[in-house]
């Protein structure tokens, strides 16, 4: 069994100014996650490490670099899921946490619950000694500028249903050498979202799903559309019916476009080590590491390969 990790940095109309930094960011995160697998770490450890790297990178809308809501605040959502037992942890609308994916993992491992929201999630973070960070440290100069420019969320939606406002959620899926799969997804949501808006990312079956018998998925794109079709679970239901990972992803994304007019992207791994990265938005930054090397892309059908630097 060969280990694989796939990461994404969000499916949307990534502007040229962010293109290189986005691709570089997902490549680094994929390598970080893969090195965990190489050291014998679990798929769960690998997706957490990869998503932490993306959360720490200000290019992406998760952790540092998150977008601001209508009140100019940062509210973060994240999920993690372990395909062995279907155990899952999620946080929604949490504030002042640099790595929400690690808080989601703590919800999974240290509580009897699956999901904690808002101040309850922050109280839990405090109770386990997780450090909080000042809001300013999570917000970039660029986001402050964009937020002021684009304060009217409704106008943003009308201008272009899919793409013009940042929703570059990050995520990772992995399979380890024992054949266990896991997924993790983290996001700051949509710029100028209503206070308390929860998107697809922390919702099990929408933002992600992992099951050792089928595979693992992490989704990105228009959150409300992803929720309406429970995209992660939908993709895996096609896989269960015997379709390939790529075909399952394409069918599901096309269905989301037809049925609820939403665009997005998904990364998938199977327990046997197959993988796919698919999107219906203009661009999606993604990278994967398998036994062959480092794969990555940004444009539709773009698939580049590099030898892994040891």
């Amino acid at each position, binding site marked *: 069994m060969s280990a694989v990790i796939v990461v994404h940095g969000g499916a949307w109309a990534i502007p040229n100014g962010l293109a290189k930094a986005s691709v570089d960011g997902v490549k680094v995160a994929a390598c970080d996650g893969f090195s965990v697998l190489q050291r014998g770490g679990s798929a769960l450890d690998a997706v957490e490490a990869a998503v932490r790297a993306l959360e720490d990178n200000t290019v992406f809308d998760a952790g540092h670099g998150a977008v601001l809501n209508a009140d100019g605040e940062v509210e973060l959502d994240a999920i993690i899921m372990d395909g062995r037992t279907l155990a899952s942890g999620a946080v929604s609308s949490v504030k002042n946490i640099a790595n929400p994916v690690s808080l989601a993992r703590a919800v999974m491992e240290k509580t009897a619950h699956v999901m904690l929201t808002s101040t309850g999630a922050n109280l839990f973070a405090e109770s386990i000694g997780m450090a909080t960070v000042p809001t300013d440290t999570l917000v970039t100069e660029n986001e402050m500028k964009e937020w002021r420019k684009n304060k009217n969320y409704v106008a943003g939606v009308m201008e272009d249903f899919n793409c013009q406002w940042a929703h570059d959620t990050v995520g990772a899926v992995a399979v380890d050498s024992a054949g266990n799969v896991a997924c993790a997804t983290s996001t700051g949501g949509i710029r100028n979202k209503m206070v308390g808006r929860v998107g697809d990312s922390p919702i099990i079956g929408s933002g992600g799903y992992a099951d050792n018998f089928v595979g693992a998925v992490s989704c990105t794109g228009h959150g409300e559309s992803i929720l309406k*079709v429970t995209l992660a679970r939908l993709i895996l239901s096609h896989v269960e019916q015997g379709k390939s990972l790529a075909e399952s992803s394409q069918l599901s994304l096309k269905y989301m476009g037809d049925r609820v007019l939403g665009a997005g992207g998904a990364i998938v791994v199977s327990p046997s080590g197959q993988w796919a990265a698919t999107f219906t938005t203009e661009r999606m930054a993604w990278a994967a590491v398998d036994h062959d090397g480092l794969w990555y892309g940004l444009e539709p059908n773009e698939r580049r390969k590099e030898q892994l630097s040891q």
Partner: protein
Amino acid sequence: MSFTSVRAGRIEAASKYCSSVFRVIDMFPVVVVHGGAGHIPKERSEKSMSGLCSAARAGYVILRGGGSSMDAVVEVVRQLENNPSFNAGCGSVLNAKGEVEMDAIVMDGKALGSGAVSGVCNIANPIQLARLVMNKTSHVCLTSEGANQFARSMGVPEVPPESLITEYSRMRWTKNLAVDADPVECQMGKMGTVGAVAVDSEGNVACATSTGGMLNKMEGRVGDTPCIGSGGYADNLVGAVSTTGHGEAIMKVTLARLILFHMEQGQSVEAASDLGLAYMKSRVGGLGGVVTVDPRGHWAARFSSHQMAWAAAQKDTVHYGLYSGENFTQSIDDPL
């Protein structure tokens, strides 16, 4: 192709799902209601059953008058939220801190429109707030203080916290503060989550689910109820499901969506519900119950727990039951 024409093409593609492809001549509108799965104490079961039957009747009257399945499920759940016998709205269980935090979801099978609220306080009818999220925002789910902020902006009145707390819920909360108490074991549906599914005369399906969650839950705990695909799902092409039971287990298998996948594969409402519940039991050790309809008006109320209080109304007959195998009936014209 210009952007506009791409949009137009997509809307056309989408509209084929919205037309009443499933309109059949012998469609009988139906509403199916549950009041929670688990163990219902005897002294409370009678009140639960009469509350459910009267809510099912109210939903059915809406359907019989040509009302939509969405109107019916929201009215049913609103009545159950107002009934202190159920763990939703007034009568909700208390969290570890002794407060009420509620979750609710609605979903409309026509366009997959959905609205949900999680961790909301001081709202008498979270189900109506969830419907407002669906109808008045571009979002699907609002949480905590943000949901309350939205409620204020919509003119939904806030109610005093005590108005939602019953003597019974406070007594159970106090009991579970004892060091040797096992709230997880004890909470299983003694008073349950409430939910409803319905099919209207045009073949549109809808679901609604509302809950106070789990007894002595951590502050901010969100269960299956407001999570689309777990607490409920509705799709005119397949059917609608509302779930109840151990929330964390329901989430791990996305129970509502799982049952509908089985129906897409050709299973009946009963078989699909049983398959979903059996899988949840074997894979994650969780018990629960569901109410399920398909767009042709077939319905089922199934559970793997010891009991589930349920009622259904179709063809002017109310069906109801509490233990496995029960199916009592009364005429819609019988006095309550």
